[in-house]
């Protein structure tokens, strides 16, 4: 045996050398943390398929001025930082005498070589709608505000429509006679729509509000079926049934298209309040996720709507998704995407028994049925971690943007790359 020991060691070394031949290279890991002191949380992730780069955005509290600003981050395909910028986009022209303005995130869209941002510029008394256009390296090309005396506006989403921008948000007052807003109270809110030419930011081509009695909100706007604009949000128009999903089809000057105003009650449950967090656009419709809640209970939901060539919208699927018995089925869907395996992936947040909450990843089939046993949780052992958004990369992986809670008010942005089994990629 002793005589054979050198030979045995030699064989082990040769075999081991062969198995160690793979060159992984730096940065093939995919759990990444980003951010600086003051990071509040992530909002969205945009994947640039031509380069494999990703753009993350969120909100940061500046240490010097104690105000929230827009935080933009660009990372390469390995998750390493390429550029980051913090922008204070507050409406200093209008509210120059007011201190402590905060940038509130609405949405970030990519159109060609430009990024379009919409959000709000707020303090305790005022809120105006903020928009900005950046290049893909975060150079600020244009910015503007919409402020109306006595009205609080908040920007939620936008899209570029030829040379113009279509903006949606909320307003706490009626801007167009005939829209039913019973009173200008904090509980009342309308959907605000505007069309502007960014080359002439001081002029508003069209603006109006739409909505019903109660509190309406909007998350998403898109052009579909040629000359239709669809907005997806929530409404309390049927107050006995809580807050429900609202899908509204409008023409280019924001007038209703026929009767295409649909309220969607999730799962047929009355008195549950729906909140919409993300919309995934399909070729012939939209998949929506969010939460359906009542009291301490909240369930992620999956809604699938489609439209035909004439613009008629139909509801194909609307149901809540059970999460797990250990967490009381609770969870909130914050982002949704269509995976490379033909299933949908929903990222969000779910409470846990031994900590605040963790990042949730669910997988459903194409019909929105929660795949049995596919429910993954990620995050720290303490604190409230939240999954914010999810996208599919060109190599068939899933990128998850989340916010991790280190405690004592310290958060970081996190980017995970997982496969369709939910396993962190190397």
């Amino acid at each position: 045996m002793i005589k054979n020991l050198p030979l045995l060691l030699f064989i082990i070394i040769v075999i081991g050398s062969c198995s160690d031949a793979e060159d992984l290279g730096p940065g093939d890991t995919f759990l990444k943390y980003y951010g600086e002191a003051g990071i509040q949380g992530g909002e969205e992730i945009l994947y640039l398929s031509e380069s494999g780069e990703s753009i993350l955005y969120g909100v940061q509290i500046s240490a010097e001025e104690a105000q929230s600003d827009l935080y933009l981050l660009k990372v390469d395909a390995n998750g390493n930082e390429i550029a980051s910028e913090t922008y204070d986009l507050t409406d200093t022209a209008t509210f120059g005498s007011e201190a402590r303005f905060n940038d509130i995130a609405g949405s970030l869209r990519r159109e060609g070589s430009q990024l379009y941002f919409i959000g709000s510029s707020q303090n305790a008394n005022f809120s105006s709608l903020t928009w900005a256009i950046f290049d893909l390296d975060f150079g600020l090309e244009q910015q503007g505000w919409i402020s109306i005396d006595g009205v609080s506006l908040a920007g939620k989403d936008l899209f570029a429509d030829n040379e113009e921008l279509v903006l949606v948000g909320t307003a706490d007052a009626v801007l167009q006679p005939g829209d039913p807003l019973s009173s200008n109270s904090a509980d009342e809110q309308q959907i605000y729509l505007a069309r502007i030419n960014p080359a002439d930011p001081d002029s508003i081509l069209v603006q109006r509000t739409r909505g019903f009695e109660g509190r309406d909100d909007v998350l998403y706007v898109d052009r579909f079926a040629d000359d239709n604009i669809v907005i997806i949000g929530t409404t309390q128009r049927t107050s006995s049934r809580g807050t429900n999903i609202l899908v509204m089809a409008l023409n280019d000057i924001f007038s209703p298209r026929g009767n295409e105003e649909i309220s969607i009650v999730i799962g047929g449950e009355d008195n549950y309040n729906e909140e919409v967090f993300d919309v995934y656009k399909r070729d012939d419709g939209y998949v929506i996720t969010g939460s359906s809640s009542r009291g301490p209970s909240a369930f992620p939901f999956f809604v699938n709507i489609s439209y035909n060539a004439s613009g008629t919208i139909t509801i194909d699927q609307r149901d809540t998704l059970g999460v797990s018995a250990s967490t009381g089925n609770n969870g909130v869907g914050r982002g949704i995407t269509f995976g490379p395996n033909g299933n949908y992936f929903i990222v969000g947040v779910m409470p846990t028994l031994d900590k605040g909450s963790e990042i949730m990843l669910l997988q459903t089939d194409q019909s929105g049925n929660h795949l049995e046993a596919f429910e993954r949780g990620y995050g720290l052992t303490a604190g409230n971690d939240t999954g914010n958004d999810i996208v599919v990369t060109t190599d068939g992986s899933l990128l998850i943007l989340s916010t991790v809670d280190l405690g004592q008010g310290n958060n970081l942005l996190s980017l995970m790359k997982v496969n369709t089994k939910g396993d962190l990629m190397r």
Partner: protein
Amino acid sequence: MREKLLGAILALTVISASAQTCSQRLVQAERDYENGRLQSIPDNIGDCFGRRDGDFSKEERIRAYRLLTLVHIFTDNEPEAERSLISLLRVDPEHQLDERVDPAELRLLYNQFQTRPIFRIGFRAGINTSFPQVMDSFTASDANFDNKFYNGRGGVENQDAAGVRRIGFNGEVTYEQYFKAGLEGVAGLQVRASSYDVDNFFNDPFFNNNITNSQVYARLPIMARYTLNYDKRGGFQPYGLIGLSYDFLISARYVNATRRGGSQFTLADNVDLLASNQVNRHNASFIAGIGLRFPVQTHFLTAEFRYEKSFFNYIDEDNRYSNQSINFDLGHVEDNLRLDFLSLTIGYTLSIYNPKRLNN
């Protein structure tokens, strides 16, 4: 009458001899040898070897066995000569002949015997420190910047890494076989406990962490060792060695982890890296070392430096994310790394002899 007289003289001689101490009898036997009176020598000193009282000292035993060997050589009693020489070598395993004194017949017989140890047993214990060699870097921070530091070397901006160079302990027992020309083969079993520190710094200095990774290996080293002036008696003898080792990981744990930034992080009590398959159980190492040995009779005290370079990844690259708490709470992702070690040991080597006639 004449026979009676001779008998009386012989009786008196025996009585006289039995009255002497063994030391005196040995001196007398050596005089008899010088005077050519060989026949009576074995009887005169023979019973001194087994007596408890008045027995020979070790030095006297060596002289006595050498004398008996010479007597039996010159009385043509070869079997007894060999037995006496074996006895001599048992008392003085590395007995050296003196060409100026020892006759050629004795040297001829001596050279037919195994006078070196048949093997040696070495016992060593000492300290070690590790030098992690990163093959591929993995980090939850930006991989384009130097943000991970081992054993406290480095830092960012105005903040140094909190880690320190850790000292571990190792002990081994070896079987050592002499080949020729100062060359020996050494094989044994070693247990090595070691640990290293790693600090991770993130994009902003408000968040970083420090982790201590601890390992216990059972190792099977096999080495070739060359000693200068191998047969020199007395004084220090330098040696060098090279070899290989099979390394079996018995235990691997995170034993300490701290985080700066956010609330206090508490490491779980039992973070077993083997249980989570984060580390590879099998490895192998190349060994190189230098040392000094100092003879103590036929044994040795040793002091030895070794540098040991592992061949394979300590981390299981398929399971670097299997400890979610470490990955997420600390933002720590293990690199692909080899563990190299520098060790200093002191030891004692026992020489085991079995004097016998060599074949051919």
